[in-house]
């Protein structure tokens, strides 16, 4: 999808044509992006537009006047409010720092300076949150281009490097406490590129451009990965080949004793380091899967090698056989209930990469080459797995999918599906939105695409409003079973309209498909709706390219299609709830207990 490399020179030379071609794509997701700059932002917006278009977004931009990020966010806000941005990017640089410590500064002076330097930024975040309530992206600062004190710049109280590190630490601490603001780490981005390549003083003096074209491209790519994370389009699963990808050599030919893994040789160490990188990804919630041309039994011995960092239990799906890899990837997708557009495929063999890229264009297939020392760097640079926060669910996800595989094997032994569900000993906690869960509720709402009846997105602040509205019925559901805790997996919200509850939102994680969880949610929804005097439920299905699986959701739950449903915008459904009796028999339902 985005694997062909695009350079800054390409965009400068052919940006207008690229833009025209990319705009002709179908199904782009519109986003309204306000760029509030401390420098000239036109080039960054041009680059960001191309990168976002390649990632499936269609941005409409607002740009502040040169350097006017504070004024347009805080003082003269009318134009920005009228633009109604989804995302505001406050794009500043070390050029925007107003004051550095004097040579004789004391530590109190420096602390006061950090505070006063950050105060306009705090004001910007506060005003944007209060006036617009959009997502805000704020970058930290790159290090200065010159260090007058040399090495001492990093240790002396008045040193600029030391000061900027303090400023960045203080900014990060502030932002960690603000749910609407996310930090873009250009300090690391610039370090990776090198400050010499990052800034060009002539561009600043001539055009007030704070960065080089190459730097703007890296900033744009990093921003686009944040958009993917915010809109639930980040990748979720890393599919790995085995021979010469996770270990050196061909296990079927060389035998398990001869594969390169461990610490004995340079190659063995490099494969071990790559396995460690994959394991790190898994620890933060990325699923791992194997897709290898191998004999299943032989392949498993490789992961049982005493020096193998990755063990069979780290993989949520395992395919070692002689089927074409794109077919195996589709079957992994089916097993994990994920779309192939959430997959990244890594294989040292260019023929396999080409096959998968051609057959499954939605799979990301980075050109990792065949040098194991480069794999992690190449995967990392694409920022496939960007996330805007690590929830407890992210940290547990791999274990949850692990438990799912066990569930699938248990289900094979039951002839009767109901008996299987009963054997799972499921307990659902279903209740109105609780403050402790709001983060997760907003996260799930904004990233669920498949089991989602209306695909409406809500910010955290909007969720808080709904939770507090007495005319709303809100429900979340968490599901536990004998294999583990699935976490918070379903969200339903409706509004009182006359004698009915109109269901604005009904979504569920595909992790718990076919578990009767939607029936448990309906039972609770009816209960709460009747408690505030409603006698009917009204449901809507709004079709998208991804939510076809719930087209018959309401019909399966016994709703009847209402005569007034508009055909082109979806279907509308009704259920009389006066005589409703609870239907869920396989899940024990309990309420929230703090």
């Amino acid at each position, binding site marked *: 999808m985005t694997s062909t490399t695009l350079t800054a*020179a390409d965009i*400068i*030379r052919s*940006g*207008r044509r690229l833009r025209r071609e990319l705009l002709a794509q179908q199904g782009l997701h519109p986003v309204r992006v306000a760029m509030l700059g401390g420098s000239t932002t036109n*080039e960054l917006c*041009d680059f960001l537009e191309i990168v976002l278009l390649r990632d499936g977004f269609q941005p409409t931009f607002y740009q502040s006047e040169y350097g006017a990020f504070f004024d347009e966010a805080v003082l003269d806000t009318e134009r920005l409010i009228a633009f109604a941005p989804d995302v505001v990017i406050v794009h500043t640089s070390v050029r925007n720092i107003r004051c550095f410590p004097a040579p004789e500064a004391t530590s109190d002076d420096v602390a006061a300076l950090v505070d006063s330097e950050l105060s306009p930024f705090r004001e910007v975040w506060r005003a944007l949150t209060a006036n617009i309530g959009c997502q805000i992206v704020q970058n930290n600062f790159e290090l200065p281009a010159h260090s007058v004190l040399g090495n001492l710049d990093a240790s002396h109280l008045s040193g600029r490097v030391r000061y900027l590190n303090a400023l960045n630490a203080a900014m990060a601490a502030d932002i960690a406490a603000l749910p609407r603001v996310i930090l873009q780490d250009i300090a690391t981005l610039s370090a990776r590129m090198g400050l010499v390549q990052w800034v060009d003083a*002539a561009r600043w003096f*001539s055009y007030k*451009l704070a960065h080089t074209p190459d730097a703007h491209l890296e900033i744009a790519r990093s921003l686009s990965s944040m958009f993917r994370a915010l809109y639930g389009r980040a990748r979720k699963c890393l599919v790995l080949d085995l021979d010469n990808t996770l270990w050196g050599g061909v296990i079927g030919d060389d035998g398990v004793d001869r594969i390169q893994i461990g610490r004995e040789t340079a190659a063995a160490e490099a494969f071990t380091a790559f396995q460690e990188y994959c394991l790190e990804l898994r620890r933060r919630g990325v699923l791992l899967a194997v897709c290898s041309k191998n004999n299943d039994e032989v392949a498993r011995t490789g992961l049982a090698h005493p020096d193998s960092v990755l063990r069979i239990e780290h993989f949520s799906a395992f395919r070692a056989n002689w089927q074409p890899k794109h077919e195996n990837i589709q079957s992994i997708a089916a097993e994990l209930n994920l779309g192939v557009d959430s997959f990244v495929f890594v294989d040292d063999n260019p023929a396999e990469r080409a096959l998968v890229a051609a057959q499954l264009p939605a799979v990301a297939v980075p050109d990792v080459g065949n040098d194991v020392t480069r794999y992690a760097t190449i995967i990392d640079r694409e920022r496939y797995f960007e996330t805007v926060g690590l929830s407890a669910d992210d940290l547990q996800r791999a274990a949850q999918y692990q438990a799912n595989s066990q569930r699938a094997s248990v289900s094979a032994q039951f002839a009767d599906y109901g008996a299987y569900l009963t054997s799972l000993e499921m307990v659902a906690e279903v209740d109105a939105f609780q403050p402790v869960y709001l983060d997760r509720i907003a996260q799930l709402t904004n990233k669920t695409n498949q089991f989602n009846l209306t695909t409406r997105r809500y910010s955290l602040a909007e969720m808080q409003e709904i939770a507090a509205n007495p005319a709303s019925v809100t429900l979340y559901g968490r599901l536990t079973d004998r294999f583990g805790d699935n976490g918070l997996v379903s969200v339903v919200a409706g509004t009182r309209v006359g004698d009915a509850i109109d269901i604005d939102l009904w979504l569920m994680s595909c992790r718990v498909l076919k578990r009767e969880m939607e029936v448990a949610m309906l039972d609770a929804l009816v209960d709460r709706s009747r408690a505030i005097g409603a006698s009917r439920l009204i449901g809507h299905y709004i079709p998208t390219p991804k939510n076809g699986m719930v087209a018959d959701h309401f019909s399966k739950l016994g709703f009847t299609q209402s005569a007034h449903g508009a055909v082109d915008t979806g279907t509308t459904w009704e259920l009389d709830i006066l005589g409703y009796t609870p239907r869920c028999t396989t899940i024990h339902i309990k309420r929230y207990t703090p």
Partner: protein
Amino acid sequence: MTAQLADLTPIFQDVLDLPSLELTRESSGNTVEGWDSLAHINLVSAIESQFGVRFALGELQDLKNVGEMVDLINRKLGS
């Protein structure tokens, strides 16, 4: 190596996305569609990388048209 009008034409065609653009020595921001100050920055970057030259501060502001731009590039290539 010298720069000719014909060498600049494809750069202008690409950057301005005008595949049938014809340049003359008299072409300027006033006569060429889409050659605004933002496109100008891209034109300068593309010319610098194509000819391996670098324009000094203010050097481009005094240029009236494409002809003078060609002459400036050639002075840089010759020096």
